[in-house]
């Protein structure tokens, strides 16, 4: 493929991601909701996640993992590997979106401890720097300021 066709494919993938952003069965919905919650752009998010925009767009086209499934960890791991994104950051993004969305009708955009969704995201990054690298770590980290459980 030439660069030109690469660019066009990326444009088409972006188009698909945009069309899927209202479909809650997709990662596009997760990303779109997260972007709204955090007031981020795709570009900024890809930087935050330490990946490329292309990888993020490809991730958006994937099916959303089922957080109620016993396979949730494996599912997120597969997504993280596919998009070359840090597992902890990805897990936290998914958890945050699900938690904030679930609570948005009850306690607004901050949780019972007063921690905002943005802070939850930052805590994920902090935990990553502190060396946590598994979904369990991410879940534990999330528990420190959890909104869902």
């Amino acid at each position, binding site marked *: 493929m030439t660069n030109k*066709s690469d660019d066009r494919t990326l444009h088409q993938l972006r188009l698909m991601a945009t069309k899927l952003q209202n479909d809650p069965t997709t990662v596009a919905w997760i990303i779109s909701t997260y972007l709204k919650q955090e007031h981020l752009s795709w570009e900024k998010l890809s930087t935050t996640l330490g990946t490329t925009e292309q990888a993020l767009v490809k991730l958006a086209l994937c099916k959303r993992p089922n957080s109620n499934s016993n396979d949730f960890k494996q599912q997120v791991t597969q997504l993280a590997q596919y998009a070359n994104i840090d597992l902890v950051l990805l897990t936290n993004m998914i958890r945050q979106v699900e938690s904030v969305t679930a609570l948005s009708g009850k306690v607004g955009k901050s949780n019972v401890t007063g921690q905002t969704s943005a802070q939850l995201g930052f805590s994920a990054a902090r935990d990553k720097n502190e060396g946590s690298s598994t979904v369990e770590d991410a879940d534990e980290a999330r528990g420190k300021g959890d909104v869902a459980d």
Partner: protein
Amino acid sequence: MNDEDLALNEKLLKLHARMMTGDLVARSELAELALPVLTERLSKKHPTIFDTDLIDTAVTDALLNYFDNPDLYKSEKASLNSYLFMSANGDLLNLLKPKSVERNSMQLDEDVELRDRYAEIPIESFVVADDLNVEDAVSARLSPVDARIRELFSDPRDQELAAMVIDGIRKTEEYAKVLGIDHLDSSEQQDIVKRHKDRIKKIIIRKIDPREFKDDK
């Protein structure tokens, strides 16, 4: 089919199989693999189309429709590449249809049908009087309906289907073209078309208050 096509189809089929087992990333991989191929084939088939957006819309819509209903693809009937290509080609032809002319030249009394809960019943149209400015009349009378359709249906394809339902179009083939399933056998087409028509009609019936267009009379 040459070796390259065979290899591509083999890859696509594997991804299709993974999709069917619930693999989360398979559809993304499939899109990345299929998009450039579909784009190239469609561009070659329609060399006079210079608006790349049309091609992009057609190929992406074809893939999204396939993602919505992967089980509609039957490997014994066509290769996945051909199936997606036919779907994209159908979408493109539909996008190229002179919709405004076609729709606006239809029955000007179609808004009456919107007020009718039984939209399936065809309504005979009147011929527009010679001295009537058709464009103005159509714009004045149908714009609110079209605008309402756009409000109700975010998906352009659904908008098209809704317009057809409102237009009283009954032929399955017409809907099949819009849905990109005209390559399927007629009984399958009928089933799918019926499902879509029922869905569209339910939304129209549920969301449109027949009184809201009375002023247009």
